[in-house]
């Protein structure tokens, strides 16, 4: 061990490629998920349990607007909630990386600009789509069905990918503004967790008391849930005429939110991220 020759420098050939570097860092994020039992449970068992618990525990108690199966009503909401929770993953991963020095190590390497955030974004997009697949399968097994054309179903899944992409940037912003992984958990529990419940995620808006009902009607988590119900032809997906604008145009309202989050959050998130690592 005393003799450690410094190798010839011939190997130093390649050039930085944003896509290549991003993928190397994304692959690391996916390996992390595989090797952290908690993260793996969050991504696999938890979504399946949520579908089963809500379907069988609340199924008999909650009336679905216009009648129909609560299991079918549930799926749109639980997809939306799971995608929102995806923001935690990327926020915690970033906060961890900053704490343990991984960010510094990456930035001391000749990597392409943006590949650290890009890698986190790609990894968390993949991580949040895995539960969607598992929940779809679980749903199909317990009796969830789609009643619309293939194009509409494809649109529903496309909307989920877009929504997930927006949530990644919420997560990057959260992970850059908040100092520690513990603080991320705190903010998530106090702000984001209630946001997914004061919505039409699990219950119809008209069953909520004011002012919660108004919050739910304007909550993008509600319109995301309702858009999916509409595109899948599930109960609760009928367009309300006469309600507030978001209720009449759930898909349009959701797409506006997605665009707004990406256009506002992404640049802001990149700025805060740069600030958080510049010290």
């Amino acid at each position, binding site marked *: 061990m005393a003799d450690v020759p410094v190798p010839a420098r011939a190997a130093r050939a390649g*050039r930085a490629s944003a896509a290549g570097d991003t993928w190397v860092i994304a692959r690391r994020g996916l390996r992390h998920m595989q090797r952290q039992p908690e993260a793996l449970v969050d991504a696999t068992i938890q979504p399946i349990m949520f579908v089963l618990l809500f379907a069988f525990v609340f199924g008999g108690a909650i009336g679905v607007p216009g009648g129909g199966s609560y299991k079918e009503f549930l799926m749109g909401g639980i997809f939306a909630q799971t995608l929102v929770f995806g923001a935690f993953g990327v926020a915690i991963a970033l906060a961890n990386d900053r704490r343990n020095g991984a960010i510094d190590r990456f930035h001391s390497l000749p990597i392409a600009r943006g590949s650290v955030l890009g890698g986190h974004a790609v990894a968390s997009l993949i991580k949040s789509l895995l539960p969607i697949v598992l929940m779809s399968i679980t749903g199909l097994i317990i009796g969830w069905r789609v009643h619309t054309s293939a194009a509409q179903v494809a649109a529903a899944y496309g909307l989920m990918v877009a929504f997930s992409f927006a949530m990644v940037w919420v997560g990057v912003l959260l992970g850059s503004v908040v100092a520690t992984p513990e603080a991320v958990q705190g903010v998530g529990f106090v702000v984001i967790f209630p946001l997914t419940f004061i919505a039409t995620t699990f219950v119809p808006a008209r069953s909520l008391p004011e002012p919660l009902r108004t919050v739910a009607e304007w909550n993008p988590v509600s319109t995301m849930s309702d858009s999916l119900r509409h595109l899948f032809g599930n109960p609760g997906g009928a367009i309300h005429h006469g309600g507030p604008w978001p209720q009449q145009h759930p898909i349009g309202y959701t797409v506006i939110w997605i665009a707004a989050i990406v256009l506002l959050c992404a640049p802001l998130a990149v700025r805060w991220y740069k600030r958080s690592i510049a010290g």
Partner: protein
Amino acid sequence: MTETNAIEARGLVKRYGEKTALDRFDLDVPRGSVCALLGPNGAGKTTAVRLLTTLTRPDAGTARVAGCDIHDDPVGVRRGIGLAAQDATVDELLTGHENLTMIGELHHLGRASARARADVLLEQFSLADTGRKLVRDYSGGMRRRLDLAATLVAAPDLLFLDEPTTGLDPRARSELWTVLDGLVASGATILLTTQYLEEADHLADEIVVIDHGRAIARGDARSLKRQIGGDQLHIVCAHAGDLPAVAEILERVCRAAPAVDRQERSLTVPTDGGPGAVAAVAGELADRAIAVEDLGLRQPTLDDVFLTLTGLPAQDGAQPAHDEIPSEVA
């Protein structure tokens, strides 16, 4: 790279809010040499490393590192350096082999050569047996060795090692020194930071003593020690009442005023008299029947260096350590 200096820094300044972490800092490190930045926690060592490795931008000043300018070509700098940060920043949830392969891929060696390079380095750093295990199961010494291996993946011209042995037990430290000796012998240029004079002495050609963000002394270990008079004669009295008498003896024998610590009942004075000085002092103490608990020679510590250079003991926390800097101020 044709320049003779691997690092040339001029007038680097970095402020965090009110605090000046680094103040008009100059540094020349010739290629193939080892330079140690020596100072207490918060002296500005890590800040200097962060500026030179392009992790942080200076508020003023310039530097050429590995032949590239830190302002104009930070990616060029990163291509030519390896950095082992203060806490071994290897990835706990990857294996040793995956860590090194990932770094190689981010240096754009290509997947196959990155994997081959990882094998070679694991072998060289005695990690071949554990290379396929997750790093979270590694000991502190193994992490540091892996961290060091990670800095060598792209065969850099210049290594930055920020407190490479802090937190290691004595055995792991001496193992790491052996590794570093090998690197030095192979002609690597190294900038390391340390809180231990002994470590700087052992590894470095030149030592730069930093305090409050300023370089307060430079030179090789011998010239620094000469400034503080080589060895230290250290006495602990049995009775505090004897301190003035013992101080008088020490001043006469060593021809220098001793530093007196009343709380510890101890006296310390620089001497170049070696065992002869100890014998002379011991003889006088015996003649006057003064009881002591301890009497002996010791190597100067970082505290002694600071005491001599600044007239003040080395103080921790004079500047915030890097991880205490709130993100807002950057």
